[in-house]
C-alpha cells in the first residue's frame, strides 16, 4: 500500500515538470526522489513507520485529500 498522502503531479504552485513527480499532500510539496521510495513502500520501506511526515499527519487522514492512482513500481524496479 502506498502512502495515502502521496500524489503524482506535474505542477504545483509555480513548479512544473515534464513528468509527474511524487507530491506529498500532507507537506504540500514535491518530495525528494529518495523519500518517494518510502511513500511507495518500495523495498523494505514502509511509510507508516519510516516517514516522519506521515506520522505527524496521520490523524488528519479522514480529512486528507487522497491522491490519485499511483504507480507502485516503475519499469526499472
Amino acid at each position, binding site marked *: 500500500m502506498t502512502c495515502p498522502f502521496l500524489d*503524482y503531479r506535474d505542477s504545483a504552485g509555480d*513548479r512544473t*515538470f515534464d*513528468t*509527474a*513527480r*511524487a507530491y506529498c499532500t500532507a507537506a504540500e*510539496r*514535491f*518530495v*525528494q*526522489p*529518495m*523519500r*518517494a*521510495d*518510502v511513500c*511507495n513502500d*518500495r*523495498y*523494505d*520501506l514502509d511509510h507508516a*513507520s*519510516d*516517514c*516522519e511526515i506521515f506520522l505527524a499527519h496521520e490523524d488528519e487522514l479522514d480529512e486528507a485529500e487522497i491522491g490519485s492512482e499511483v504507480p507502485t513500481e*516503475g*519499469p*526499472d*524496479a
Partner: protein
Amino acid sequence: MTYDDFLAGDPLIITAALTGGVHGKEANPNLPETPAEIGRAAAAAEDAGAAVVHLHARRPNGERSFATERFQEIDDAVRRHADDVIVQHSTGGTGAPAEKRHLPLRTDPAPEMASLDMGPLNRYDHLTSENTRGMVDALHAEMVERGIKPELEVFNDGHLNEVHGLLERRELADPVYATLIFGGGTLTPPRPRNLRNAVDNLPEGALFNTLGFGRHQLPFATMGILFGGHVRVGLEDNVYYRQGELAESNAQLVERVVRVAEELGREVASPSQARDILGL
C-alpha cells in the same frame, strides 16, 4: 597525502557527482536525471576539467533506480557524449536490499570505479543506510571480480576505523582511495581541523578525495587542494552556486574549482593522468 604533496604539484583529480539519488529536479531544475541529460552533463563536466563522473540512476520521474539496464543506458549516453571521462557508479542505496546494491556493478563494460560506503548513515528521522561489514565485503568482492576500483566513502571518523578494518580483512589494490565527507547529520562536522585529523588517520599511502556538502563544498574543496588531496563537486552534493543562487550546471561547479586550483598552482588531472594516479 600532505601539504608536501600540494607543493610537489601532483595533479588534482576532480570528480563531478552529477545527479545523486536523494534530491532531484524539485531541488534544482538544472540537475540531470535522464540518461541523455546525464550524458550531456558528463561531457560538459569533462570539458570543464572533471576526470571522473560519479553516477546514480533514476527512473523517468526522477526516482531512484538500481537496475543494471538503467546504468547501462546512462553509461552508453556518457560514452556517446564525453571523450574519455572515468565512469564511477554509486553502490549506495538507503533502504534498498543488498541484491539491488550490486546491480550497478554489472554493466558491460563494468565501470572503472564504484563507491563503497564504509558504514552506517542516518537519513531523515527513521532510516539508516546500514552498510554492514558483510555488505561492504560482498560489494568489494564483486568489484575485485569485475576489475572495479573502489572509492571508499568515509562519512565520519568512525568509518576511518572501518577503512583500516577493511584492509585487515581484504586485500585492496594500491593506492587506497578514500573520499572524506563533511556536512550535517551522521557526517563528520565540517571543520578544517576535522579534515586535517581525517587525513592523518588514513592508512599509509592512501589518497584522499574531499567532499563537503552544501555550502561547505567550495571551502572543503579548496582545503583538499591545499592538503594535497583530490576533490568532488557537483549537484548531487550541492545545488547552489552561492547563497540563494541555484547552480546552473555541474560544469559551472567544476569550472569554479578548476579556477581555484589554477590560482593555487595545482595542475588539473586529465582522465588519463587520473587513471595513472589511481592505478586504474
